[in-house]
């Protein structure tokens, strides 16, 4: 009963957050001075098309209809929310008319998801492992070397690192392709190897940058937990290092790391932008980039809404599974 109320309460908050975000997304562009219909009309007439007043009026009405700009603001808002919440429809893309926005997003999503999820997880596991060991034995040479590497990697701006990797490994040494071209029939070995081959460099760039951050944060966690009273008590019980590390330090160190991981997975849709532009990777980031460049209003709305939903979903999932991981917040 208690649990049910907790879950339902969390789901309600989740829905409210998304509706609130959609509301902001709806109103902000409409508070601005630009009118997309007039902008479109200006674009059409600037391209030299001649139309009489009746035709202009007809076009204006039909544009307003396609853009969902008919009726009062409140009516538009209600129609907008209804359309997105109940049908998940963001309308057609303006730059790739008449392909629906959702279709473009669904095509791009697996790429972004596959690339970022894999590389974030690899960096997380590696970073936690190295950070845990170097926090446990801060004076060992291997720990110092790993920490040195992490501190050097951590502050490099991501785009610099990605560019350096790209220049070194696909221009100077020509090991990896400069832009992404996927070949092969669906589900063939050729396709899989082509995907891995093309994704290697962008994935490496993410792993390297994020890895440094994980190492530093887990190391700080571990060296603090090592001095906790329960760690000392475990040592005075005569328990071995391995057992103290895996049963006492690791679970306590991982708790905050799991929160960070979920937030990072939620945020990765925004983070994908630079990676995908630099490596010409056909994911969501490239889609957002095109939408901005082409003034594709619907596509922009769709991609931004999706990233809001992604962050909200990630935090909700964490909130729901956290009580399973930490007994202290299980019984309120």
């Amino acid at each position, binding site marked *: 009963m208690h649990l049910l109320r907790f879950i339902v309460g969390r789901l309600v908050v989740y829905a409210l957050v998304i509706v609130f975000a959609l509301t902001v997304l709806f109103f902000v562009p409409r508070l601005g001075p630009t009118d997309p219909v007039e902008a479109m009309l200006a674009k059409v007439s600037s391209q030299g098309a001649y139309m009489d007043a009746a035709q202009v009026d007809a076009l204006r009405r039909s544009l307003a209809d396609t853009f969902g700009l008919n009726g009062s603001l409140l009516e538009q808002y209600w129609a907008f929310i209804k359309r997105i919440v109940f049908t998940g429809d963001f309308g057609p893309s303006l730059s790739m008319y008449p392909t629906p926005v959702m279709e473009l997003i669904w095509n791009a999503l697996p790429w972004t998801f596959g690339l970022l999820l894999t590389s974030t997880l690899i960096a997380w596991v590696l970073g936690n492992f190295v950070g845990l060991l170097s926090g446990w034995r801060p004076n060992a040479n291997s720990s110092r070397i790993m920490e040195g590497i992490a501190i050097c990697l951590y502050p490099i701006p991501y785009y610099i690192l990605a560019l350096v990797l790209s220049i070194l490994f696909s221009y100077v040494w020509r090991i990896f392709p400069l832009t992404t071209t996927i070949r092969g029939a669906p589900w063939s070995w050729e396709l899989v190897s082509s995907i891995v081959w093309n994704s290697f460099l962008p994935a490496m760039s993410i792993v390297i940058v994020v890895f440094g951050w994980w190492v530093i944060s887990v190391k700080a966690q571990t060296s603090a937990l090592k001095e*906790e*009273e*329960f760690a*000392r*008590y*475990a*040592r*005075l*019980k*005569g*328990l071995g290092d391995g*057992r103290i590390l895996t*049963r*006492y330090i690791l*679970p*306590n160190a991982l*708790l905050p790391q799991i929160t960070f991981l979920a937030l990072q997975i939620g945020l990765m849709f925004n983070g994908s932008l630079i990676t995908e532009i630099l490596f010409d990777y056909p994911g969501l980031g490239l889609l957002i980039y095109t939408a901005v460049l082409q003034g594709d209003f619907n596509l922009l709305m769709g991609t931004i809404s999706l990233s809001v939903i992604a962050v909200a979903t990630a935090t909700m999932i964490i909130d729901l599974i956290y009580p399973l991981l*930490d*007994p*202290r917040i299980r*019984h309120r």
Partner: protein
Amino acid sequence: MITIDKVTVGYGTAGFIKAVDGVSLSIGDNEIVGIAGETGSGKSTLMRAVYGDFSTGLRIKDGTITGRFVDQKNGQVIEAPSSRFHRLWWDQMSYIPQGSMSVLNPLMKIEAQVVDGLPKRERGGSRADLRRRIADFLAGFGLEETVLDAYPHQLSGGMRQRVLVAIAAFVNPRLILADEPTTALDVVVQKKILLMMVEIQRRLRNTLVLVSHDLGVHYQITDRLVIMYKGQIVETGPTAEIFANPQHDYTRNLIAALPRLHGKRSVDRVGEAP
């Protein structure tokens, strides 16, 4: 059981900060020894050196601490300096810390924390069997079986302290060291836990060393009392005798500072805090 011979203990690897200064003491079988003294008197440092907990820069500069244990199972005699006691931890000797909130792993159930570290001789039988024995043992401390499935944060301070006493006693050790085991508790709970510790000692006929700044605690349970001041032992003897006829000025002051039912307690003191 434990022989402390003119031992000087302190901290630091480059410099050396003396905490215990040339102390000699012998701790025998089947007795409760109390070590009393104010904060900074060196009592906890001495206890750590006796337990063999040489971490955070603690080291013995002069003198020796040696132990002599008889293995309960094969009757073998183990003699070792305290620097090698770590092999005897949770086997021949165990330790009761002050039961603050963070002394038990917050993510482990109590049962697992009792089992973790147990020597082989106490582990025998199936897991269910072991659980049964632990539950029976905890019942002796007035703790229900549900405590085994609880996490530390679900227990009160008094329950946590009883669990810590139980964990140390379940090992069946020859020597139990307790560092301020009742300091954070109210006097009613304190009394209960002290009585349990006495009962365990009488039953196991082992040695209990109790470190506390609270003379009232020592008065209630210890057989023999050691008073420390500025890193040295200023007085030692049977507890009743020390309370009846304190020899050293510092001891007299400590006893005079105890709360009493009639009259005013003394507030004068010797020297400044170390």
